[in-house]
């Protein structure tokens, strides 16, 4: 199977994730969509690694996973705190930081 298909899949997943971030209001869903985008990028990296025949892309993918894990820890904590204080997980409700 041609590696190009992996890239198409990655692009599809990335677009899905981006649409989710833009269109969904629930912070948990937005968060999951961000994860989806990150994993789409990982998929593309691994595919490139395969195409070029070296391990650079895979190493980068590991880095992304580690960073994503750290981000999940912080991000989920923020969302939980937000929910506790305002009883809502909608990102549009948290719009106080404006002029």
């Amino acid at each position, binding site marked *: 199977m041609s590696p190009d298909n992996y890239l198409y899949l990655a692009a599809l997943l990335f677009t899905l994730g*981006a649409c989710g*971030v*833009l269109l969904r*209001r629930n912070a948990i869903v937005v968060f999951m969509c961000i994860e989806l985008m990150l994993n789409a990028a990982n998929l593309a990296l691994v595919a490139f690694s395969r195409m070029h025949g070296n391990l650079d892309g895979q190493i980068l993918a590991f880095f992304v996973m580690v960073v994503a894990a750290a981000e999940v820890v912080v991000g989920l904590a923020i969302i939980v705190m937000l929910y506790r204080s305002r009883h809502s997980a909608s*990102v*549009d409700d*948290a*719009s*106080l*930081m*404006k*002029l």
Partner: protein
Amino acid sequence: MESLIGLLVAAPLLGALVLLTGGRRLDRAGHWLGTALAATSFVLAVVLFFDLLGRADGDRTLHQHLFSWVPVAGFQADIAFQLDQLSMTFVLLITGVGSLIHLYSVGYMEHDPRRRRFFGYLNLFLAAMLLLVLADNYLLLYAGWEGVGLASYLLIGFWQDRPRAATAAKKAFIVNRVGDIGLSIAIMLMFTTFGTFAFGPVLSSAAETGEGTLTAIGLMLLLAACGKSAQVPLQSWLGDAMEGPTPVSALIHAATMVTAGVYLVVRSGAIFNAAPDAQTVVIVVGAVTLVFGAIVGCAKDDIKKALAGSTMSQIGYMMLAAGLGPIGYAFAIMHLVTHGFFKAGLFLGAGSVMHGMNDEVDMRKYGGLRKYMPVTFITFGLAYLAIIGFPYLSGFFSKDEIIYAGFAKGGTQGWILGSVMLLGAALTAYYMTRIMLLTFFGEKRWQPDAHGHEPHPHESPATMTIPMIVLAIGSVGAGFAFNLNESFAHWLEPVTGLAHGDSPVGHGTVSLAATAVMVIGVGAAYLQYGRRPAPVVAPAGSFVTRAARRDLLQDDFNHAAFVTPGTYLTRGLVYVDHKLVDGVVNGLAAAFGGLSGRLRRVQNGYARSYAVSMFGGAAVLIAVTLLMRAV
């Protein structure tokens, strides 16, 4: 001996510092401290004078280098003093008359609550004036020049609660500023031409310099001299300066500071000698002022303003003599010294009269005071005889020498100058006799003032009469002593040079003519004011009289020529500044303000809209990158 020179300046400077910073605890003894320090300077000056006398003729220049003020490559500004015959003469005059007037002020300012401050200012003036005449370079002279200007400002406006005094002080300061610009330009020209501004190098190399440059320097120096010495066209401040206390008028605005311009011209003699055009302008200024001042003096009813006109006129004589070159320098200084005696004496006499008359200055409200103030009358009378040139009193010698020097200029010029000065002498005799008759002779004309207090004229205390007596002795004897074997001219000769010129008329003829015009002047005044009682209210007078009462329209002229156009100019500039400059700046600020107001709407607080702009921006960046690669 050199080390004493600095002390001359230091003593009064110390007095000024102590008196002006010491506070009220010095109120009781401060005036005596100021007087003592002025007298200290005088004693030092006498010691130095005898030291100079003991030296050979060519060895009478002492230098004291205190320290280098600004030592930069090619620019050496030193705090250094030079004492030669010319400065010595001035130092003796300044400290001598200065000490006497300090003593006089002890009595005159007795009832003034701010007497300590007054003495502080007087000491400050002495220090600055001594610095002016002792400096060995033009820059230090400039420092003293500004110092006396400051002291003059402070003392004219001493009674600052009187609006007229405050205004007069400002007027004096501003008019002097015009002249000071001349001095600073002259110093800059000297520096670019000679590379230095020390007297020695500048004056010795003046003869080999281009005449154009020297004429420019000379005219700028003359502008400075006009400001300080109240010469036409910068004369307008002197009359108003009489708002200050009378001892100030005597010391600063008659005897010493106003003669600084003459000092400057004589000191810079080498420059003027090599620039005949500048000399001619000096002569013209002197001649115009001597007639101008005399005419003003004839019309004023305020005794101090009449004397101020006379001062202007007498300094005109000195300026004219200084413009004549080596035939006149020594006599300009000689007249300056004798004038210092008799004019200070006249002012102190006027102050004594005012002291006894509840500060009334209008001569038409005096009359017959000789019975009430005998000492004042006699001292004033002797000074009066000296100034009108009564034979064998000091004014006779010094003024005749100047008139003779005017004739000795030669040719038509000589005749014109001589005649103008003889006319001035007649006017001098006229206005002085008028003052004398209105003040001391005739019937008493004073009346109770608004509060019903009638003045009780009385003789002044001894602190005031002693200085007047000393000055009267000087007025009588100085001229004779100076003229003995031409001792004064020979004393100054190494500094100023001395030439006799060739006059078409002899010495005797000049003296005779001067005496004749003096008699005419006195006679005219006697006919007008001596034979019948003077009216208490001034008669309307002719056109000339009315103009002279308004100082020959000097203020109207200045107003029309400078003040009004200046006002319009500044108004126009303010308009342009408001509308154009401020308009551009404010418009720019408003534009940016409006723009930012619109831009900040983008920041709406919704995370998703920020995400849109992020994605959009990323998309644009990628698109641009790809496009660039494609191209």
